[in-house]
């Protein structure tokens, strides 16, 4: 929310500091707020999202993909699929866009202290968990084992490729990366198989563990039963939902799943909460 105005719909302006082309149609933008006060005071929690403006095209909703422990900038990651995301893809380093937020609830990181963490993500859904991953890695001693199971359709579709290498090379994270059958190139050094299958193979222990899952609906559908089989209770599984949004702050009436507003009551939910919702997302 803009510091200097009572207009809740007015975005803060930010400059694009860096662009990473994660895949042919997925980009990461690193953003620095133009207003000094905002730059110094902007804070958020992992899991929160913002509304990003490509002025002239509109706003689009993505999580804040960088960790709250990193100061001075925020990052977002998106696939160009609609009018606004295509306009955002057309922006260059030095261009201005708008950021409205942070909105929504967040992952209760403090509740995870002392526990093992299992991250399970698929494709373009890694960014909402990546913020938590770095948040936890930046406070590494507070957590037990950290396991990351991440897969995409093909090698080219993996996002944060350079960070996957970093996680692989750190001694304190177990990274299991995979691609769908047929998605591996000749030099692929990871697994081949769908994420739920590879997760079951990796069989992380559910004892004193929290699972964080993010992926397309089909992946979630097959991953939750695996976690159940591994012994995770619905209270110990977290996910983030996405839905069509406009205002991002609970008024425009669009993002509700039943009586739950994804923008206000979410986007972070436990599997227990998700199962209690009408299946309308």
């Amino acid at each position, binding site marked *: 929310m803009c510091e200097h105005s009572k207009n809740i719909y007015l975005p803060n302006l930010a400059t694009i500091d860096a662009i990473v082309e994660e895949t042919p149609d997925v980009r990461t933008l690193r953003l620095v707020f133009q207003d000094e006060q905002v730059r110094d005071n902007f804070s958020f929690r992992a899991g929160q999202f913002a509304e990003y403006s490509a002025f*002239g095209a509109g706003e689009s909703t993505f999580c804040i993909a960088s960790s709250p422990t990193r100061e001075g900038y925020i990052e977002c990651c998106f696939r160009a699929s609609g009018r*606004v995301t295509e306009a955002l893809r057309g922006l260059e380093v030095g261009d201005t866009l708008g950021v409205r937020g942070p909105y929504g609830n967040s992952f209760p990181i403090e509740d995870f202290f002392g526990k093992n963490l299992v991250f399970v993500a698929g494709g373009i859904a890694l960014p909402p968990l990546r913020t938590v991953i770095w948040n936890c890695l930046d406070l590494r001693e507070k957590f037990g084992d950290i396991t990351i199971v991440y897969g995409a359709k093909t090698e080219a579709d993996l996002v944060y490729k350079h960070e996957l290498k970093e996680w692989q090379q750190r001694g304190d994270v177990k990274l299991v990366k995979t691609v769908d059958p047929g998605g591996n190139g000749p030099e692929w050094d990871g697994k081949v198989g769908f994420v739920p299958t590879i997760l079951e193979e990796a069989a992380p222990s559910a004892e004193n563990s929290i699972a964080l899952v993010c992926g397309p609906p089909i992946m979630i559908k097959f991953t939750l039963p695996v976690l159940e089989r591994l012994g995770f209770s619905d209270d110990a599984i977290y996910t983030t939902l996405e839905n069509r949004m406009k*205002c991002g702050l609970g008024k425009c*009436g669009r*993002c509700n799943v*039943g009586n739950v507003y994804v923008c206000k009551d979410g986007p972070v939910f436990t599997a227990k909460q998700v199962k209690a919702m009408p299946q309308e997302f």
Partner: protein
Amino acid sequence: MQKYISEQNFNALLDSLIKAGKRVVAPRMNAGTPLYEPITASGEMVMDQLPRRSGKEAFFPLCEDIMSYEKEGQKIELKDIDPARFPETVLVGVRPCDAAAIPVLDAVFSWDYKDEFFLERRNKTTVIGLACTRADDACFCTAVGLSPADPKGADLFLTPLAGGGYGCVTYSDKGEALVNANTELFKEPNDSGALPLAEPQSETFDLKRVKAWLDEHFEDPSWDSIATRCVGCGACAFVCPACHCFDIVDEGTEKAGKRRKNWDACGFWKFTHHASGHNPRDLQPKRYRNRIMHKFKYYDDKFGQTLCTGCGRCIRLCPVGIDIAAVLEAIMKDE
């Protein structure tokens, strides 16, 4: 406080407000259609018809600019909208079904984030309500806990009297302020009784029971039979006093333009459609279900209120005769 105002004095009151530069919004004919719109003279008012829209546009306009942008090279300049610019308004002749929705909408527009576009207009508006002496069989305010003389939402409420003129009662500081600023027009109450009030012929709906049914019947084959014929326009949402969903769009070019907040409706197929092509409410019965759920369950879950005042406009104006009162009747009969 209780007062009496004659028809003549009431017109004089409005004319003096207009002369003082206040925006006076009242039912008037616009190209043959009665609507709550700004008037330039009291003679423009029509008091014998229910306006086709609810008057919520006095606080929640059909379309409004929420900011403008201008691009110069890599820089963008934003121009904010100053709520102080919203005009002082007197909203006149507001029927109970329309006025009662206003405090209901307060809840969502002040939920954590304060929408000053709505709230500042609310602050600056004095609502003069008017009791109804006529109803048709689409009216069902009495069925949802209101009545043709319910002053909910009004700062000053008028009841037409048998001997002419109106009995007035103030319900807020704003109402009292209006009376106190015009003491020569408002007299002490006389003994003229009220004209007989309208009697909407509708069974009363036990809203708790309706909500309990909705809590349990998200998946129910009756949604198909109720709503298959819905054609997915926005008429019901737009004429409704309580519907408040909106869209935010940028209009202009890349170089300069406006960001606007416009009315939107959950009946439209596009409402929940993702850019990926996925649509959680992809068929019309699901969208209609959301309408009923939002009005009679979700808004209650979130804010403890019902999002319907029984004005009957959706019933009268639905292109395919979907009747929300019939839906509620059917729910009441189930089990």
